[in-house]
């Protein structure tokens, strides 16, 4: 495939594993997705699903001595997996940037925020200290920090959680990256502040035409901001579709299980929630067949030992809807209709 037809960010068959004393941890296995500039892809999954490791692999943040990475990560025509660490470092902070969950541990406590921001500028641009400082103050103003000139001279601990997250966003976006990865950017924040931050990311995204990969466990945020959704479970991508297909026509039993597990703010559909039984699998000891099989309420419909023993392939249902499941299509559609009907307020 030539570069002109390749998506802006194109992840192909990404696999990351870490050797540990307890055995090989298969953190991510065969994950593929793509995203264009200006779009938002949400990666959804529970703890241990491999969503953060995938993001770190894209950013080139996985220590190659500690983990094995295979597959391809194409950003704007360059394969990050095949690049040297030095070359990736040049891209990081300029072409691609990341926002982390906890702003306090991602900002240096000893340096003033203005200094930390101007350092980010000077690493990637040949500008004077004064120019870098001016850019830093300008960016702080753009992320909605009041009185940016004097705030630039404060330390991270003098700011509230929401303000620190704004500083992180300012630092991530100061070199106008074309790819922004936000790993649970609002999980540590209160809902009213979360709304402010999501709005800020969206407005900066449209200003800079940024591709955003948003990692979250909150389905409300997904419905709010995502164009496309990748659902991960046990290190695998189990379903991928546009946001409407995920919420109204999801077909993978895990995605449907997630939907039935969430209590809704706008309605109480039934007295009891319908949780997924059991616990997520250990990444050292993944089931040999479908990773979700031990918790799946529908695998008996497939019959035999197919679900237990065979890894399901990622099936393409339509142009942008993929699902990894052994159930036949009629069965999946039937289950999907049932579950989504109840989820969106219908009677069981």
């Amino acid at each position, binding site marked *: 495939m030539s570069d002109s037809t390749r998506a802006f960010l194109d992840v192909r068959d990404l696999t990351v594993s870490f050797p540990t004393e307890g055995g090989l941890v298969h953190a991510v296995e065969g994950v593929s997705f793509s995203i264009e500039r200006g779009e938002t892809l949400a990666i959804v999954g529970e703890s241990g699903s491999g969503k953060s490791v995938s993001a770190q692999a894209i950013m080139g943040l996985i220590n190659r001595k500690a983990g094995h990475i295979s597959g391809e990560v194409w950003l704007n025509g360059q394969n990050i997996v095949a690049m040297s660490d030095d070359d990736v470092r040049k891209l990081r902070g300029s072409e691609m940037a990341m926002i982390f969950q906890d702003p306090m541990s991602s900002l240096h406590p000893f340096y003033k925020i203005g200094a930390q921001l101007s350092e980010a500028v000077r690493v990637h641009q040949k500008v004077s200290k004064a120019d870098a400082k001016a850019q830093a103050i300008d960016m702080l103003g753009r992320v909605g920090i009041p009185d940016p000139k004097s705030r630039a001279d404060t330390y991270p601990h003098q700011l509230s959680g929401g303000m620190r997250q704004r500083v992180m966003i300012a630092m991530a976006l100061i070199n106008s990256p074309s790819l922004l990865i936000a790993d649970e950017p609002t999980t540590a924040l209160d809902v009213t502040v979360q709304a402010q931050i999501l709005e800020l990311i969206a407005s900066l995204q449209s200003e800079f035409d940024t591709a955003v990969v948003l990692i979250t466990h909150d389905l409300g945020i997904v419905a709010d901001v995502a164009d496309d959704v990748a659902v991960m479970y046990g290190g695998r991508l189990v379903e991928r579709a546009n946001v409407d297909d995920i919420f109204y026509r999801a077909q993978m039993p895990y995605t449907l299980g997630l939907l039935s597990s969430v209590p809704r703010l706008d309605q109480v559909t039934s007295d009891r929630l319908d*949780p997924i039984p059991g616990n997520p699998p250990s990444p050292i000891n993944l089931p040999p067949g479908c990773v979700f099989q031990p918790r799946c309420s529908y695998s008996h419909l497939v019959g035999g030992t197919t679900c237990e023993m065979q890894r399901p392939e990622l099936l393409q249902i339509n142009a942008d809807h993929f699902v990894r499941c052994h159930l036949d299509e009629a069965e999946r559609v039937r289950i999907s209709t049932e579950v989504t009907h109840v989820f969106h307020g219908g009677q069981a």
Partner: protein
Amino acid sequence: MSDQPLLRVTDLKTYFPVKSGGLFRRSLGQVKAVDGVSFDVNAGETLGLVGESGCGKSTTGRSILRLIDPTGGRIELDGVDVTDLSKKELVPFRRTAQMIFQDPYNALNPRHTVGSIISGPFQVQKVDPPGGVRAAVQELMERVGLNPEHYNRYPSEFSGGQRQRIGIARAIALRPKLIVCDEPVSALDVSIQAQIVNLLKDLQEDFGISYLFVAHDLSVVRQISQRVAVMYLGHIVELASRDVLYSRPLHPYTHALLSAIPLPDPDRQKQREQITLNGDLPSPMNPPSGCVFHTRCFRAQDRCKVEIPELVEVAPGHVLACHFPMTDVVIGTRIEGPNSGLVEMPHRDVEAPSEVIADMAEEGLGGPVTADYVGDPDRD
């Protein structure tokens, strides 16, 4: 006795002194974490207590259990005033009231086996359960969905959800009448959250336990509570039955809080009108004058800056502290401007509350009462 609520909290105040870091630990003032909070919890009921971090919801829960000593006010549990009980006198009180903590990793001693953790309450209270401690503990383990054969395992061998089950088994060991749940599911994955919420509901049905459910996740609170109280900066600003609070909240803060939470439904989410509050929570050391919310309120008037709104019952079971309640707005609909359809609460009128709503309705300000968060008649 039967008419009495199980828990009655009256004008609860918990202040923390703030001292300088210097040699003499000069007093710099105090943080009014909880400042005059009153509510009841009935037998077998769940009262949700919601608010943002720093609003005093956890401090309220801990003060009620006397894990923190309150500065003022009164706490009555089951007809007994427990506000000033000494440490020794508190021991029997702990049989009636227990707690479930947020972090299942730090709430369990890593060097104790599950069996000894769950049997802790029996030992402390010198209770000899019929059939022996081990049998009782294993029965509890089974009741909360743990394998009783794991009696001798350590907390590190369990997942987060299973650890929270251990914490729950310990809390229900003495069949308490009240359990304060402090963010019991916020550290858990979505699919595990639902399991724990269901378990808490089942236990309530079986044993008639009352919960004070402290949480910031309003969706979870809606699922489990009968009534919900909203706190802001140490004060309760609104308390109502669940359905009223979620469909027709009167306090601008409740309204903003609800509208800030995105719905897991792309179509509905697109139709919704979001109110974005500006700024952060003010410092509780230096709370704003008048109504504590006025610095972030989109309906604030001059009066709000000077006059503290009193908590009055505006309808049966619905209490509110606001000068300009949102009687004209059904949640999810557009708010025209900051001052549209303002209805002022009568000045310090504690006597004639429920007519206020009736008057507003007569003036056509009530709008349609919909039980739905987004008033979309076509959906269903």
